[in-house]
Structure formats: C-alpha cells, structure tokens
C-alpha cells in the first residue's frame, strides 16, 4: 500500500519528482556532487583524475567518520561537540605511546580517553539531562586541558606515527586509498545499525518522541549512554586514522573538522532536531564539502571571499535540498 494508491489522477510531474526525491533523498545529493565535480573539471580541465579522486576520498573519510558521530547523535536530538577533541586526544596518545609500545597496545591506550569522554557525555546527557551541546562542550574543554597537561610528557619522550597507520592513512593500493579498508566496515556498520537493529530504531525513537519511547519501555539513559560511547569510540578511531593521514600529532589536529562534521550531516539530510535522517546521506555530504573546499581553493579568491562563498553555498545547498525532499 502506497500513497499513490489513493490518487484519482496522476499527479503533475513536478510533484512526482518531489515524491521520488522524498523517497530517495540520496539522489539529489549525488546529483549535486556530480555537478560540483563537473564544475571543477570545467574550471581546470584534467583535474578530475584518479589521483585527485583518491586524494578527495582520503580527506573525505575522516570528515565522514566524525560526521557519523553527528548523524547518530543528531538523530536523538543531540549533537557531539567533543568529537574533534576526542579524535585529537586519540591521535596524540597514539603517537606518544607508540614510542615505547606496540601499535595495538598503544591504540588501546589511545582509545581510553575516548571511552571515558563518551561515558561522561552519556551520563551527563542521559542521566542528568544536561543539554548535549553544553555537556559535550564541557567534556571537550576538560579533554583539551588534560591533553595539554599530558602533552608535556611527550616533549620528553617524543612521538612516533606507527607505519601501519601511515599505510592506512596515506597509502594507495592500485590507486584506491587504503583508508577505505577501515571506512567501508565502519560505514556499513553505521548504516546497518541505524536501519536494521533495535538500537538503531531506538535512536530514531528517542529523537522523535522521548516520552513515547519511555512509555514503550525504552530506557533513555541506556540508549544515550551507549550512543555517546559509540560516538566517542568512532571519533577516537577517526583520530587514529587522521594521525596516519597527517602524521603530526598536534594539539589541534582534528579541530578544523568539527564544524564541517556538523555541516556534512546536515547537508546529508539529517534533522538536527532528531528523528529523521541517515548515514548514507552524510557520506555524500562529506564528499560534497570536500569537493567544495577544493573548488573554492582553486578559484584563487582572497581568503575572505572564499569563506563567504563557502558559507553561502552550504546554506544554499541545504535549503535547496530541504525544498526538494520535503514532500509537504
């Protein structure tokens, strides 16, 4: 049974397109991505080659992974502003611990702060009902502070990026970025989790109507705790990958990805108020932002004009997309 069954006469073409878009929200996003790539190729013929695609994908992956955290938390009406700090912490701890430890132990230690911040966020938001914006901002400040204290120990011991991470972050195999080896499973996990697991359902449910979820027996704090822990762990893993890509454990490593990660999720069609959206759109959103960044850089505009265009385009795309998809 579909909506169409109730129609007396065929709807006008415009409405049919809209309905199609509304059922297939990925299509307009992909179209937009293709258009952007087209513009790029038009401006600089030859730029769109294998190397460029690999490069774009390499940089879109960490962004898409942090945007996964935003997607999941936004579905519950939240947001996770601690992801960039968590990623940076994981990267920094990894580099510092790798001097003395094997990569696996170092990685485990590196993900520990992620776990702790995730738990703190989950308890604050889920149990104490602190607004996610404030809670994650607060833990992020605490995290940065701890990192700065920790950073001193590194000055003495030095830092090292494990070769495995470098291979994963920067390497290509047959022209294909090795980072996909990490990203594809993560993306598949997030997409399948959201669509086909009980936990995924609950994320949408608490985001749509927390009271209703409660009356159906859903224990909010458990869902939220699990969510923010998961978000922090994904952010932590992103940090490790990003370390392999940039290969310098700076204290502000992942900061520039923070706001774009929110933008990618929004452009990808996830509602910041909860209950609506998905990860496939976010991935395309991350690609769109990455290509857009390249495009603006190639235009050789003054920095100020570049920022203005960037903001304007993000806004325009989001607005157009909402119009297109919102079948009401």
């Amino acid at each position, binding site marked *: 049974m579909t909506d169409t069954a109730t129609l007396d006469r065929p709807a006008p073409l415009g409405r049919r397109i809209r309905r199609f878009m509304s059922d297939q929200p990925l299509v307009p996003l992909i179209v937009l991505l293709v258009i952007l790539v087209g513009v790029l190729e038009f401006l*600089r013929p*030859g*730029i769109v*080659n294998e*190397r*460029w695609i690999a*490069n774009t994908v390499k*940089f879109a992956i960490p962004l898409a992974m942090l945007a996964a955290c935003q997607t999941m938390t936004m579905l519950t009406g939240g947001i996770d502003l601690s992801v960039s700090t968590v990623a940076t912490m994981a990267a920094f701890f990894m580099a510092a611990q790798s001097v003395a430890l094997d990569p696996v132990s170092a990685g485990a230690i590196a993900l520990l702060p992620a776990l702790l911040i995730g738990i703190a966020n989950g308890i604050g938001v889920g149990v104490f009902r602190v607004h996610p914006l404030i809670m994650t901002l607060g833990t992020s400040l605490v995290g*940065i502070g701890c*990192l*700065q204290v920790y*950073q*001193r120990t*590194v*000055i*003495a011991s*030095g*830092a090292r990026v494990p070769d495995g991470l470098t291979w994963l972050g*920067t390497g290509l195999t047959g022209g294909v970025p090795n980072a996909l080896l990490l990203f594809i499973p993560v993306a598949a996990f997030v997409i399948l989790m959201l669509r086909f697991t009980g936990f995924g359902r609950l994320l949408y449910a608490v985001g749509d109507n927390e009271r209703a979820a409660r009356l159906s027996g859903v224990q909010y704090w458990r869902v939220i705790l699990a969510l923010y822990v998961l978000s922090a762990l994904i952010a932590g893993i992103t940090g490790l990958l*990003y370390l392999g*890509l*940039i*290969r*310098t*454990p*700076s*204290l*502000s*490593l*992942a*900061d*520039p*990805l923070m706001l774009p990660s929110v933008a990618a999720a929004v452009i990808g069609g996830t509602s910041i108020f909860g209950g609506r959206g998905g990860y496939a759109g976010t991935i395309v959103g991350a690609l769109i932002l990455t290509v857009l*960044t*390249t495009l603006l*850089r*190639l235009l*050789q505009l003054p*920095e*100020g004009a570049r920022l203005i265009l960037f903001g304007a385009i993000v806004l325009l795309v989001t607005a157009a997309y909402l119009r297109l998809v919102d079948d009401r």
Partner: protein
Amino acid sequence: KDSYTIGVSNTVQGNGWREEMVCAMKAEALASGKVSKLNIAHRNTDAAGQLEDIRNLISAGVDAIVVNPADPSGVNAALAEAAKAGIVVVAVDQGVTEPSAYVISNNQEEYAYLGAKWLFETIGGKGEVVYMRGAAGASADSDRDKGFKRALAEFPDVKVAHEVFTGWQQDQGKQQILDFIATGIPFDGIWTSGIDNVIVDALVESQATLVPVVGADNAGFVGQLNKVEGLKGAAVTNPGSIGGAGVALALQILEGQKPASQTVLVDPELWENVTPEGKAKLAAAADPSLSAEWPVSISIPNWTHYTKEQIVACKGPGE
C-alpha cells in the same frame, strides 16, 4: 631580592612553537634561581582576552610580565597600566608599540625575507612558487608577508602560482598542497610559514616532483632536510626559546641592568641542505628526540641558561 614572581601571558594554545616558548620560560625561571613563582595565563584568545589576562596578573601583584602579544597595539592599555604599577613588561616573539615595554623578538619580516630569497635564488631566479601563509589576520603573518613581498620584488621573474592560508594547521596545509598537486599545474618551489613537514610528506606521498621547500626549524622538518632523498630545502630559525630570553631580560631589568635599547631583535638564521656548511648546521641541529612541532633551537646563546633536560621537563620553580 631573589624571589620574584613573574607573570606570563600567551594567547595561542596547542601550537608546538608556543608550547616550547612556555617551557623555555619555565626552564629559564628555574635555572635563574631568582624566581619563586611563575604565574601563567595561557589560552586561546584574542587581544581583548589578553587584556583581561594581563590585568589579572596586575591584580596578582607580579614583579614582571612576559607577554607574547596578540597584537602590536591591541594590548597597550593593559601594558601601560602594568608599567604604571611598577611592573616590568617584556614582549617576546612579536613587538608592541607601547613605549614603556621592552621587546625581545624574532624578526618576523626578516624570517620571511631570508627564506624567500633563498628559495627564489635556488630555483634560478624565475618560476612559479606556492606561498603557504600562516593564519589570515595574525600579526606575525602580516609581518612575514612584508618580508616575502620584499624578496619577491627583488626577483621580477618569480611568480606566485598559488597563495593560501594554512591557519598554521597541519592538516589544512596538507590538504591544500595535495589539492594543488592534483591540479597538475606546474610549480617550482614552496614557501611555508612553518607548516613544513606535512608539505614534504605530501610531496613524497603523492610522488610529485620534490621541489625546494622552505620552512622553519621545526624538529620534524629539520629531520626531513637531513634524510629525505632528493629534497632541497631550507629551515629558517624561529626559536620558541625566545620565551626563555624574555624571562632572562625581565630578570636583568628587575636587577637594575637595563638594556641599551628597548627592543632587542634576534635575527633568524637560515640552514639549507645544499652547501656542505648548511648540511653541517642541519646535522648538528637535528634532534629526533623532540616532538616534530617543536623548533630545534631550544636555547638562545647569551640569553638562556637552562639545560635541554630542563626545557624538555617543562617545569618551573616550585613545580
């Protein structure tokens, strides 16, 4: 008196260079034996925030304030108030226009000029270069821009193929250069404002031609100049240890030894890996034990008195 308290104000946090600067201040304070307490305000903020920090330090009753100014004139008001309260004020790394303040600074304009000139000469006085600046709007960046432009004016056949702001962020810089490489537009050299090792990484990873690269004396980049096969390049010194020199100067003034001039400029040096002398300097300077973002010049002769252990330990008096 041998138990001074010294206040410190810095407005960029989480940048290796600035961290080294703070550690140098602590180490110098400890090594001098004359400082009982360092009172450090160290956070990411703007000139207005720095005004607040300096005023808090005045409230705390410190004997001297060493400041890395967010702006040459933006914090003058608080610096003047400090001077009025009898507090010795020393600005490090960048100058201030407040006349009562002492300045001990790296010469930022010269820093850029030296590196750019070497680069333009190395590429044979003509060609296209990529100009990778710092943070748009930061004063160190605009000073360096003056130096770069001065060198550019001396080489009419050198063109800027691409000018970008890295924001002094490693990842930004790396993505920017990878993007540019991917366009296939030829270029003959790269000048960076200290975001250097990731640029070399990018060239190597993307198997692009290794063009000459100019950067700062950061440990990571110096290591690359020594080791990376086929890489021509130069590191221009920009010691973060200037912070230690600032503390030393403040102590001298407190002890009654005023310097001849209000402003002391530490001139940068250039270490390239083309000539044997340059290579020797680079080899001597290399320090793989340091974090890649830390400048290798961890001390300034005649100014700082601490040991490497002390600066690396990063502990001040009483810690």
